[in-house]
């Protein structure tokens, strides 16, 4: 009889990303960054930092430049001025895949999954950068590429277990409801074992229950994997509960930066959200 030996709980705690930065030290530093599209100044002279292990929220009214800021961090936009320091390395120009290989993952405001592929394959795709066997090996059903795939599959299964999406493992993501697609996207971002995870409105368009689930997953990712998270979110209740520190943008400028309670009390922030006669 073929009896598989039980494998015990996977040691999720051991997967805390080792990127050479001490917890609490600066992981990412944005200094005097400005970005403009023609005459539109999307970001003006913004500086802030993200510390290792924290949840950092970027908030602001519509058009404040939040997503642009994320795209700058991600390497998708190149700022005209200013420097970005990630894991101690200063960078000016880079491509998004370089950001990915340095340990930055992200999710998108509008879900950007491969809709025809299953949940499993989508998350597997997130491990692309960690697969090393070349095309030749991948042609064969057995051998090193196969072993490599098994290893990666285990990691992906841990993520599936973590996000409680076992029931949709083989479902094409195009058929999934929006809330679950968001979760799959988070899974794909996690698959890259990022040291910095960027979440662009992870809770947009969700109902209360889905929001609560997502909040719990974000907190768990932060605690369990020690992943540093920078997120954009509109739901103030969520931001105040989740974030360790908050930076507030308005019309491309930074108007506040600090703990949620400080930011909440700031007159400038209240004005930005409620509007004042200019």
């Amino acid at each position: 009889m073929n009896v598989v030996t039980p494998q015990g709980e996977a040691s999720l705690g051991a997967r805390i990303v080792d990127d050479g930065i001490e917890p609490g030290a600066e992981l990412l530093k944005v200094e005097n960054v400005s970005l403009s599209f023609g005459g539109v100044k999307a970001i003006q002279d913004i500086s802030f930092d993200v510390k290792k292990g924290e949840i950092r929220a970027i908030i602001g009214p519509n058009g404040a430049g939040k997503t642009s800021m994320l795209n700058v961090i991600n390497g998708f936009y190149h700022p005209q001025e200013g420097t970005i320091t990630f894991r101690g390395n200063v960078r000016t120009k880079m491509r998004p895949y370089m950001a990915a290989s340095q340990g930055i993952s992200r999710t998108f405001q509008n879900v950007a999954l491969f809709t025809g592929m299953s949940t499993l394959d989508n998350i597997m795709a997130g491990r692309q950068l960690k697969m090393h066997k070349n095309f030749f090996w991948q042609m064969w059903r057995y051998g090193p590429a196969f072993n490599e795939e098994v290893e990666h599959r285990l990691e992906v299964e841990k993520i599936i277990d973590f996000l409680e999406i076992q029931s949709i493992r083989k479902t094409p993501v195009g058929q999934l409801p929006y809330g679950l697609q968001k979760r799959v996207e988070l899974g794909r971002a996690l698959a890259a074992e990022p040291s910095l995870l960027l979440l662009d409105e992870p809770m947009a368009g969700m109902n209360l229950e889905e929001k609560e689930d997502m909040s719990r997953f974000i907190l768990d990712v932060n605690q369990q994997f020690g992943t540093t998270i920078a997120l954009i979110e509109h739901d103030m209740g969520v931001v105040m509960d989740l974030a360790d520190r908050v930076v507030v943008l308005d019309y491309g400028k930074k108007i506040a930066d600090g703990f949620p309670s400080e930011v909440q009390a700031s007159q400038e922030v209240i004005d930005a959200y409620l509007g004042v006669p200019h």
Partner: protein
Amino acid sequence: MSSNSAVKGGVPETFPQYLNYNAKRFGNRPAMRHKDFGIWQSWTWSQMQDEIRAYSIGLSELGLKPGEKVAIVGQNRPGLYWTFCAVQALGCVPVPVYADSVAEEMVYVLNHAEITFVVAQDQEQVDKILSMGDKLTMLRHVIYDEPRGLRDYDHTKLHSIKQVQQLGRDVIAKDGDVEWLKLVDRAKSDDLAVMLYTSGTTGKPKGVMLSYHNLVESARNANSFDNFDEHEEIIAYLPLAWVGDHVFSYAQSYLAGYCVCCPESPETADEDRREIAPSYFFAPPRVFEVMLTSILVRMEDAGKLKKKMFDYYMAHARKVGERILNGESVGLWDRLQYRIGEFLVYGPLKNRMGLTRMKVGYTAGEAIGPEIFRFYRSLGLNLKQLYGQTEASVYITAQPDGEISADTVGKPSPGVEIEIAESGEVMYRSPGVFQGYYKNDEATKETKTKDGWVHTGDAGFIDTDGHLRIIDRAKDVGKLSGGGMFAPKYIENRLKFFPNIKEAVAFGDGRDFCAVFINIDLTAVGNWAERNNISYASYQELAQHPEVYKTMKEHVEQVNRDLATEDMMAGSQISRFLVLHKELDADDGELTRTQKVRRSFIAERYGELIEALYDGSDEKYVETEVVFEDGRKGVISATIVISDASTFDQAQPMKEAAE
């Protein structure tokens, strides 16, 4: 280490003794499987013995003393099943609690049972327990199975099962397990084995006390009734706190030595069942209904050829399938066609449902629709009915092979005596009869007579073949003001046999006519709406759609037509009905945790709607308070349409239909 001590007298009497016995008998046979990380992980009986022994000794290191009660909260996972045995080995009593009960419900049970340790599945359940805080005065330790999200919690009173097992392993490495084995052997068959709280359609839950003798005898009888041995595999997916799961997935497994498989998550249970293909399968009628509905819905979307093949061979199966299963004589040509059908349709269908290897399947808890019952039997599946209660350690009656019908619940199980009281109530006496309700002598006296007979609370009679038939809950059977008998369950079941109708509640006791609330089935009606280009945004909107009302009216009138042909029930045809704007839900107290309708509660909650059914109005505006899954409350409001339905003359139903 001397792990397999001889059991005294050779015959085990308790489950921990059976564990040690099985580790010796079936050491290398699988005892339990669990799908985790996408793979079925297995434990043999001797591996399981290791796990449970370490766990048990760890618990005693934490200070669990003999006689104390341990609550188990969660879904079907090996760790939680091990808890039963680990706790029993120490002379303690496990008390499984429904995992989906809200905090307030749980507080009552945990305090009533004087719980000192809680074993919870995951963070969600741990949070629920911790949120009760000081209300649980006797609670000392909380133990969890799944560590996710719990890393940063204060671990002075909180432990993972793994940590507890490590404590135990350290002790075993130092002192061995002799003391533990002695403790296990000391237990007697009259000791209290488990306390199961009945969800109760009325009042507070009651703790049913079952001894080892009750469970071991019932399980032994059941195993021999259906010839179960160590080769069976079953899938454990029903609530741990329900007596059925406790007997099928724990007691019977320990006695026969068969393998219990835990699904990956409740949502994947269907998929996992397909992979395991259990040889013994139990499900309440609802599960069979849902399975059939989903098949029929998918066949609607299938290609023309497939649809034709399905319709043709299903018609053939309806004609001869059940007769072949019952071993009656069937013509050669029909048999041949049935074989082809098996290859083309029945086989793939059974595979789809994960019932390919099913030797015996049972359904119980509610009446099953004759159509549904026949569907499964015509595929060659040996589906049977049984009738049981928590108070009886499940088994009261069961259908023997070859004596199956949709409207009886079978003959008395081995060792069970049955009597019908003068009031029409079914009473029984058996070795499985419970010890009493915990700390509730009054209720015990009401239910159990001095000489061991138990009131079931169900009205029924024994038919000419010696089979028991259940009509309804004895207290629910009433009279219409015209004098006719009114058995609500009977009418509701008739309605529920339509796939479009998920739940129905009938009213009529002391009234002029019978009227019903209907709950539509979102899967079936939603699919129908999609195919007919009916757009809807919510359950509420779909439920109130005029086309839905039209369909429901057809269903109601069909039921009336059927009722008109029955002497006893012709008077209780449905004159008016409405479709409820929300699904009846256990969180709102409308259903019990085992999904039975709580009639009196619903009558109170929707009093306005019932009045509207009887005062002739066409619609009614209502606001209903609902409880969300996390325990918060909200209000939904709706204007509900009330519709009339035609009733039929008892004498000439055909004539009316022809006009």
